[in-house]
């Protein structure tokens, strides 16, 4: 058996196996999950930076089962298997008492299998097959969360299914234009038709990364779905997959030029996603929901970076994707830790957990400063690269990115203050630190944040730069940024964030309300209110439009029914009643009819004659 098949088959078989095991045999399931994910980690690391091809005979129409491992895919594969293993480890403790543990493990493994398949497939049709397969587990993972979670699950399913349909069309168009469905052989210039294909494929990719406007299920899932799901899919794996495919589209399949309107389109999407999502994150009062908006916001940076189509921006975008997977996953895991120990994630109730959960707090701080872009943590370096590229393409993009950074920092100051500092409530007196099984993945991720920050040269030079191939020759992106003006601005913004937080705390006397002056600003408060009521949610708007359309169609349907059931029947029966009325039994009338008829017949005949 080819080694490329193993990362697909092992988790899939293990996932199916778990479904067959009795839900009481918890230990066996955990063991299978850990074993399968760990095997995948070993396989993918052994494949790391290698190139390999595996092909089965095709079934015609250019649909061939081709697997191809090269630099970018081996790198994404390693990252996703590693994160899966860490999440699995975390789940052993976190899911101990949960009734849905069995399904969760199974879906997690099947998801991993599909992700590996999607990353390794060289044929667009098979990639689409695995990509669509993820919808099933996405639905399953959300729906098991609670009794009413299926609402959110359906929302996620519908949004992803619609965008996947776009992608399907895009794949068809691309295959038609390129004459092949093998990703490695496609290279298209952006003609009008190819532009359509490009846009359709981009919709599929950024929706998988839950960028705006395809994001609205993520905050809902944060509340409804099991927490490890959030750390696993929206925070890490989906970003990896979506951005992986986006960079495939932009770098390999199409030749995206820095000055093209498509590049600007991507940058605008990125900018809007950054700023709107972080504004929403700012006012959240729930640990998980706040993080979920950041998960959306960070995608904006990646899209902005790749959308610049400049080597430095692409490197920044992909590096940010990697960094985001670490710190965002870590942040969600700290959230899970708090939820498990304290029993709530409501920021109004939490506070002062620093003493009780020092390691969780430590991990949180490292991840939070990473995401805020504080040197020398990893987020800082990737953001600086993106800033650089954005400034080159236009000061407005840079400003938006910088503003996003400011709000990110403010909201994490608020989150940290509200959850870990401040006064400890009485009911949380007995809260203890989580077990080592939960702490270990967090600690590993936090450590990676530091390592990837301090020793950023290794990942950038060895992992990311080769992806760009000849485009990046002669550039150096690693090390401390050379443009000190940008660093200075970043530091100023971070300082401003701290000052803003301090002012906010002083004004309201509480960490959680530190951003109230933004939340309740004259115009913003109205907008926030509407946004919280899902007024801007594209899904809700789509539902409203659809229900309006359905009402119109229903009315048309009623009209047709009415024509058949009422109008025609009434006409016929009305005529019938009229005829009955005329047949009054008077024979003179009948004689008159007959004579009249005779005259008509004879006149007609004689006139014709």
């Amino acid at each position, binding site marked *: 058996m080819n080694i490329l098949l193993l990362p697909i088959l092992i988790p899939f078989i293990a996932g199916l196996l778990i479904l067959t095991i009795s839900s009481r045999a918890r230990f066996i399931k955990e063991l299978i999950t850990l074993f399968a994910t760990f095997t995948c980690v070993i396989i993918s690391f052994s494949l790391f930076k290698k190139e390999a091809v595996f092909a089965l005979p095709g079934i015609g129409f250019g649909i061939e089962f081709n697997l191809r491992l090269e630099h970018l895919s081996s790198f994404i594969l390693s990252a996703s298997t590693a994160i899966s293993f860490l999440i699995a480890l975390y789940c052993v403790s976190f899911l101990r008492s949960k009734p849905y543990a069995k399904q969760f493990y199974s879906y997690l493994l099947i998801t991993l299998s599909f992700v590996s398949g999607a990353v390794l497939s060289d044929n667009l049709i098979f990639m689409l097959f695995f990509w669509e397969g993820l919808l099933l587990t996405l639905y399953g993972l959300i729906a098991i969360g609670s009794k009413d979670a299926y609402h959110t699950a359906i929302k996620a399913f519908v949004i992803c299914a619609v965008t996947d349909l776009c992608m399907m069309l895009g794949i068809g168009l691309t295959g038609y234009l390129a004459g092949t469905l093998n990703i490695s052989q496609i290279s298209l210039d952006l003609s009008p038709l190819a532009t359509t294909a490009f846009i359709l494929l981009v919709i599929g990719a950024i929706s998988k990364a839950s960028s705006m406007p395809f994001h609205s299920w993520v905050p809902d899932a944060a509340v409804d779905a099991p927490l490890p799901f959030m750390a696993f899919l929206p925070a890490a794996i989906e970003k990896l997959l979506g951005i992986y495919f986006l960079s495939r589209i932009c770098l390999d399949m199409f030749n995206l030029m820095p000055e093209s309107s498509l590049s600007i389109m991507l940058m605008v999407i990125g900018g809007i996603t950054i700023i709107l999502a972080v504004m929403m994150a700012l006012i959240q009062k729930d640990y998980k929901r706040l993080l979920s908006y950041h998960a959306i916001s960070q995608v904006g940076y990646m899209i902005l970076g790749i959308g610049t189509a400049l080597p430095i921006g692409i490197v920044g975008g992909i590096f940010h994707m990697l960094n985001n997977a670490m710190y965002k996953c870590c942040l969600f895991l700290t959230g899970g830790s708090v939820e498990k120990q304290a029993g709530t994630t409501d920021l109004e109730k939490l506070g002062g957990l620093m003493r009780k959960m020092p390691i969780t707090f430590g991990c949180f701080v490292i991840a939070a400063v990473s995401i805020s872009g504080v040197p020398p943590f990893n987020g800082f370096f990737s953001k600086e690269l993106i800033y650089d590229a954005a400034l080159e393409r236009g000061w407005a993009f840079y400003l938006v990115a910088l503003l996003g950074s400011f709000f990110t920092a403010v909201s994490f100051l608020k989150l940290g203050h509200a959850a870990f500092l401040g006064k400890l409530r009485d009911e949380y007196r007995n809260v203890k630190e989580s077990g080592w099984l939960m702490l270990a993945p967090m600690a590993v991720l936090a450590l990676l944040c530091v390592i990837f920050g301090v020793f950023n040269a290794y990942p950038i030079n060895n992992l990311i730069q080769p992806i760009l191939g000849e485009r990046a020759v002669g550039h150096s992106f690693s090390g401390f940024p050379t443009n000190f003006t940008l660093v200075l601005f970043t530091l100023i913004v971070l300082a401003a964030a701290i000052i803003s937080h301090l002012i906010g705390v002083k004004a309201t006397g509480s960490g959680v309300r530190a951003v109230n002056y933004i939340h309740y600003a004259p115009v913003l408060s109205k907008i926030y209110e509407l946004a919280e009521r899902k007024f801007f949610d594209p899904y809700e708007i789509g539902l409203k439009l659809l229900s309006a359309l359905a009402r119109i169609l229903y009315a048309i349907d009623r009209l047709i029914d009415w024509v058949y059931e009422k109008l025609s029947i009434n006409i016929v029966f009305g005529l019938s009643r009229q005829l009955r009325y005329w047949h009054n039994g008077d024979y003179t009338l009948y*004689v008159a009819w007959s004579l009249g008829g005779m005259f008509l017949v004879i006149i007609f005949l004689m006139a014709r004659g």
Partner: protein
Amino acid sequence: MLSFFITTPLIVLMILNLPFRSLMKRIVFVVGLSLALIQAVLVALAIFGFWDIYSIPVSPMLRFNIGVDNLSLLLLLCNGMVVFITMLVSRSFIEEGEKRFNFTSLLLLSFAGVNGIALARDIFSLYVFIEVVSISSFILICFNKDRDAFEGAFKYIILSAIATIFMLTSIALIFLVSGDMSFEAVRAALDNSAHTSLVLMAIGLFLCGFFIKAGVVPFHGWLADAYTSASAPVSVYLAGVSTKAVGVYALIRIVVTVFGFDTPINKVLLFAGALSVVVGAIATLTQTDFKRMLAYSSISQIGYIVLALGIATPLGIAAAAFHFFNHAVFKSLLFVNAATLEIATGTREMDKLGGLAQRMPVTGVTSALACLSIAGVPPLAGFWSKLLIIIALWSSAHYNYALIAALASLLTLGYMLLLQRKVFFGSVGDHLARIKEGEWNLIICAIILAAVTVGVGVLFPFNLCKLIIR
């Protein structure tokens, strides 16, 4: 030999009316029944090739020209069959003794008259036989001597009288032109002097006379009252053969054999036919009386026959003849069912009935078969004749009429299902809980007719083409 068809019933009638009436009263039922049966069997055998049907012998007897062709055979068959059925039905309605004797005598007279219509080969004898049938029909209608029956018969007499005037005038005019009465001579004379206004007027008058006798809209006023007020066996006879013979058959015979087809004539026939189809079908929908509903349905079905005749192609005439036969079968069947219902429940108001299929399985099933046949549902006989009509209309480029025929066929299905649902489907009301199936003679009638309509439908592609295509 053909003249036996006319003379035998007449002679039998005379013998029956000789002295020994007490003896005759006992055998009259059997005699009538067997006469009709023999005729039906003989003709049925003829259809299957027993007779040389293409010979047209001319007998000098009574100076009538008589002859037979396929169309005549069809009427002879219908006559035998329907009179047989009528005799059987009358057993339940007309009490034994003087009444049944009189009834059978009249029926035999009418029977002879219809045979005469079938065989007549000159215009005047055709007219005489029509009058024979009509007059015996008047008496039959008011046989029960109740008020409604007299009213129905009276309307029929008045309108028949008008028809008679039309026909006699027309015959006189034609005699003026041709100087002879036989079909061939008149045909030849009309061909030579075609389209003079005198001839056209004669033709118009003759057509209107037949329209009245057949009950084509707007000449149909008498029909519903006469059918409804007559007693049950008379209704069967009127609907099955009497008015069909004096009106429809005579119309087909005269148009095909004597007048020949001409565009204005065709247009009149098509228009009158289509009008009858639509008006009859629509008027049916709001009727509450079972028999009146059937009467209006008859108007609609007669419309189909006239419509088919107006197409003036061989296929159209064949379709008309076939529908003529089918209508005799299924309309008789429905009137037999109406008779059964009337005896069992004492009412014909459909709103008071319901769910009777459970109590009267044979009546329910045969009625359903007749309804489906009349509505043109395959593979029953009615489907094939309607199909032929619509195909003939379409192939001769009468698209509007084809559309009307097809849509009216929907209406037909509608009102027939309405009837079936109101009377036979649903749940049985309390007042109907003790209803039982009708007597054996009614059951036999229903089964025979249902078997014919199903059998003809199933066997149509194999056998009946031979009979109908001239």
